[in-house]
């Protein structure tokens, strides 16, 4: 049923509005006022280019520093709109939310296009261990969870704690009551601890000291790191002494990045990590109340293929197979605003053009939009969160705005495939089949009753029909879908 029209996404032909008043750089130089539309130009920019958008730099006018984030959000929207395989974008967004970063923080947002491409999209069908290291060593994450400034002596715990709690083991494996009694952690004496304690967080924080960004900062003796924005390991900042993480001893002076990589190994190959991620995946792709059996089997696939280069794709296909045994009514998931808009655009065959006339603001107001969640636990999942009272009005506005072309995003033809000679009844039943997969006379009768429409009258006005179709798509049944495809990929 999904669309036939080719909507294209060419960053060079996709424009965002840049508008600000004249002002001054921090060093006093002046910059002129700007009011223009610019094509997306930063999606494939290198780290050095993006580094200029961080706050430590003074070459980009302040009002323009949010551009990397804006561009990446527009690109995510467009990739969803043009995708013929929406489950692929759902998979990408799962991993984007799993390794959540907050791009409204200028220093983090500056790198967001590079992060999206080189951490999330590059690795999300690949291997978890590789993805984890890509994330841990990317400037966006190093800035976001402050490992950039962590150094021997008094390490910064932020990254290590969230690595354990959010990216890998999960809070169920946090044995908080033991705090420092590592010998009491079951399995720890044999180097097979079942979970982690606060002291493991402290030790892991030490392991990552020195993992930082070439951000121009001083490393002593008037020597400065270059301002290139890429990852670097600064030996002088690394805590080289012996460590113990989950009962496993790390010798002193292990060598360049060896301590940190060892922590990533422990995290990536642990049963608790497999369970934590499997639980989130089954919840996200199958049911808000994830069936235990599927979590178990998914965790098994995670561990059995932990060294495979397509471990994550295998997990995806496993979920597809498990889901194929479940009736559609038991795998309905509430959809995000971006998917809601994309689904409507696709089903109506709308000749969508991204137009920076307020549409983006509406997408962002209708729910948790990419890279906008401040804390590292990532965007909440589930019907209750997505259809929170704060978002319902904006979701309705989003659909009606698209149906009625409020933002000049394109008008769709409500007579498509059926001609303009049909009755209201014929037209709406045709559109119900498109939107819901089957006719919904209960819904259309409400519309007829409310607007005192005679169902057998000929429908002539395309705008009026478009509005009715928009209202249909605001029904509860349009707010959810089966996420996974029927067949493995």
């Amino acid at each position, binding site marked *: 049923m999904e669309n036939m029209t080719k909507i294209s996404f060419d960053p060079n032909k996709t424009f965002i509005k840049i508008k600000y008043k004249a002002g001054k750089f921090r060093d006093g130089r002046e910059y002129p006022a700007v009011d223009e539309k610019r094509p997306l130009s930063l999606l494939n920019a290198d780290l050095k280019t993006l580094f200029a958008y961080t706050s430590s730099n003074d070459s980009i006018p302040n009002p323009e520093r949010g551009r990397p984030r804006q561009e990446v959000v527009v690109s995510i929207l467009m990739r969803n709109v043009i995708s013929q395989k929406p489950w692929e974008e759902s998979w990408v967004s799962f991993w984007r939310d799993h390794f959540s970063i907050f791009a409204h923080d200028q220093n983090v947002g500056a790198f967001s296009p590079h992060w999206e491409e080189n951490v999330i999209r590059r690795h999300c069908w690949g291997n978890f261990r590789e993805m984890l290291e890509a994330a841990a060593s990317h400037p966006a994450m190093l800035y976001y969870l402050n490992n950039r400034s962590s150094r021997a002596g008094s390490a*910064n715990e932020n990254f290590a704690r969230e690595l354990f709690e959010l990216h890998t083991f999960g*809070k169920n494996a946090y044995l908080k009551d033991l705090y420092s009694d590592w010998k009491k952690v079951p399995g720890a004496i044999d180097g097979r601890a079942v979970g982690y304690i606060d002291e493991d967080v402290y030790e892991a924080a030490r392991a990552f000291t020195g993992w930082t960004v070439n951000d121009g900062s001083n490393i002593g003796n008037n020597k400065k790191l270059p301002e290139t924005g890429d990852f670097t390991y600064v030996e002088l900042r690394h805590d080289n002494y012996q460590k113990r993480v989950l009962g496993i001893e790390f010798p002193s002076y292990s060598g360049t990045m060896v301590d940190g990589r060892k922590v990533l190994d422990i995290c990536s190959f642990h049963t608790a990590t497999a369970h934590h991620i499997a639980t989130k995946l089954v919840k996200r792709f199958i049911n808000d109340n994830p069936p235990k059996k599927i979590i178990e089997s998914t965790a098994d696939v995670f561990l059995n293929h932990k060294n495979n280069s397509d471990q994550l794709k295998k997990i995806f296909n496993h979920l597809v197979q498990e889901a194929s045994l479940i009736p559609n009514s038991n795998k309905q998931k509430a959809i995000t605003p971006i998917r809601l808009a994309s689904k409507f655009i696709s089903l109506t065959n709308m000749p969508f053009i991204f137009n920076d006339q307020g549409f983006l603001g509406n997408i962002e*107001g209708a729910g948790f939009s990419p890279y906008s969640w401040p*804390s590292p636990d990532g965007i909440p999942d589930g019907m209750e969160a997505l259809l*929170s*009272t704060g978002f319902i009005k904006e979701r309705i506005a989003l659909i009606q705005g698209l149906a009625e072309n409020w933002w000049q995003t394109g008008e769709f033809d409500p007579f498509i495939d059926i001609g303009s000679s049909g009755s209201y009844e014929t037209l709406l039943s045709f559109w119900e089949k498109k939107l819901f997969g089957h006719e919904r006379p209960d819904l259309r009768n409400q519309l007829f009753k*409310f607007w005192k429409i005679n169902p057998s009258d000929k429908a002539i006005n395309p705008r009026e029909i478009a509005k009715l179709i928009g209202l249909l798509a605001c029904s509860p049944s349009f*707010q959810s879908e089966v996420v996974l495809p029927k067949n493995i990929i």
Partner: protein
Amino acid sequence: MNRRDFINKTTLIGTSASLFGGISQFALAQKSHQIQSIKQTGPLIIVFLRGGADGLGILSPLEDSNFISARSPQLLFAPTENPIFIAGTKLFWHPQASAFSELMLSGRLVPWLATGIINETRSHFEAQEIIERGVSELHTLPDSMGLITKIAAGIMSPDSFLFAGGSNLPRAMQGNLSAIAIRDLQNGIQFPGGVKNLAVLAQLANVDRAHPASEPIQKTLALLFNIQKYLDPSIKLDFNKIKPYESQGRTPYTNSDPSVGLRSIARLLNSNVPLQYAWVDHGGWDMHEGQPNRMNNTLNQLSQALKAFDEDLQAQQKKYTLVVLTEFGRRFRSNGSNGTDHGHGGLSLVIGSNLPKNKVMGYWPGIAEKDLNRGVDLAVTTPYQDVLNQAMQWGHIEI
């Protein structure tokens, strides 16, 4: 502890608090703390500081040598006026918290020291969930209701609803009561297509009620209609922009959090909405790095917002009780990034119209190495449940 015991103990504070420090802490660990439901004479509002606010950086023991040696000099500030004395320790308000000091002097703020959860977790998300479910641990959960839902159950009037001044409903308000989240009510509620669309969409949701999205949609549409009716009694059919809200106080609300959410609450109260329970989130307190600047900005947002809110409500002669909570305090020692990592004991504030004058609540546990929780953090000597219960008592009794 029952109510009488509780009040007896709190009257001792300031004289022999240190004496009780150790004992009460031991006793706390033995109990499961219950949240009570006490009907207020005005609304109960929670401002939740997300990320774990550094209570020691807001009210600082600047003359304590333990503190001076534990913190990077950049995290200290020059002593401010009107310090608080407790158990032989002097605590100074951060310069950006001068509004709190003023509120305290005028009897509209009570600081509560060394508060938090009776739980060892140093995870944001566990600690927040513990508070937002009104419990002390997450292993055995009595129900799935949120903290505010529990407090309001049975005593919220049928024409009222829980209100969050933010874009999403906090965990604390989940459950079976009518609840809505709207960050900004400055222009009222603008519903696309006006009341006619709202009515037909409610019909569609009703017909489609087999779908799980039906219930939240129907509830939301009904609440939006009701709220707009209060804000604009003429309830024009088009749900048009209404006149922006103007504070009655001298200090303006800003367009940042938590000002916007508090302004929305003030607007509802001003329009005589029967609001009893409200919540506003304030993010940005997870200061692992660059704390001096972040504290300046974030604390300024908080103190100015609360000052604006208090002036506004005083001018309107409205009673209220507001409690500022956070999931935990921060590490006693600062880290090498000029920040502080996750800690334990924190600071709560009670603000409002019915408070005892010039009072400091809590047992100061001390900050010598032997007094610190696990040797690294300020101890918790009052569970957050007791802070809430006491605040509700105050909100209930005319003083």
